[in-house]
């Protein structure tokens, strides 16, 4: 099923799965709502870094890097 969601199944298997989904309501719901699950997490980046924090972190990283001798 992972391959099916990722569009990595063979054409033949894809046809067979789609034919099953056309007649099996439960499977169709599971497939559709699983796709929605992936999409909602992709759309809603729930952990965004604010610009001021980002700049502070970058400055701190670079300051420490300059102190370290890159071997």
């Amino acid at each position, binding site marked *: *099923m*992972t*391959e099916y*969601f*990722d569009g990595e199944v063979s054409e033949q298997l894809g046809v067979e799965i789609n034919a099953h989904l056309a007649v099996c*309501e*439960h499977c169709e*719901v*599971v497939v*559709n*709502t*699983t796709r*929605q*699950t*992936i999409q*909602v*997490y*992709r*759309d*809603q*980046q*729930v*952990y*965004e*870094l604010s610009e001021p*924090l*980002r700049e502070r*972190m*970058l400055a*701190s*990283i*670079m300051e*420490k*890097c*300059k102190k*370290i001798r*890159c*071997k």
Partner: protein
Amino acid sequence: MATIQSPETLEVHPDVALVERAREGDTAAFEQLVRQYDRKIFRIANHITQNREDAEDIVQDAFLKAYQKLHQFQGNSKFYTWLVRIAVNESLMRLRKRRNAKTVSMDEDVQTEEGSIPRDFADWTPDPEQQFGQSELAEILKKTINGLPPGFRTVFTLRDVENLSTEETAEALGLSVPAVKSRLLRARLQLRERLSRYFKQKTLSKGLAMKDGKKK
């Protein structure tokens, strides 16, 4: 510089040149790498630890560790995949410390079959993202993914949120490709099952939504 390129020569990733410059002491090149990936590393660390302060520390620690270990970077994987691996290890270590547990690893709880077999077959509202306010939706998504074992939510985050390929995810996590696929499927199904509680269509009776809010 003239080089003879065989037809099999793969296109060189632009990060390779930046890493090379950084190794030679060019901190501006390393800064460019940080700017390229800091947001992604922050999201990954947050998804794994579910703790914002830890995620901030992890971003800094992961980049510093990467900088210190640049000479170890072989170049046979992408710099980003290598960096993700460092960040995931740092994240799991933090999680372990915070929980005061001996083991928080990619193998934790993978034996559970919970959520692997779909139980909720109710269809969702056509556009669940419109049903909730932005912050409410974010809370639901955080709470839901937090309920997954770390090994599952890490695979889901890398593969589905950050869009790494299955092979890159396997490499970053030190797992086999079949293990990534198996965990990914179970993570997706478990999240679907849990989100169904919020997103499924309410039973409508003659056009009126039921108000009793009874749960099964």
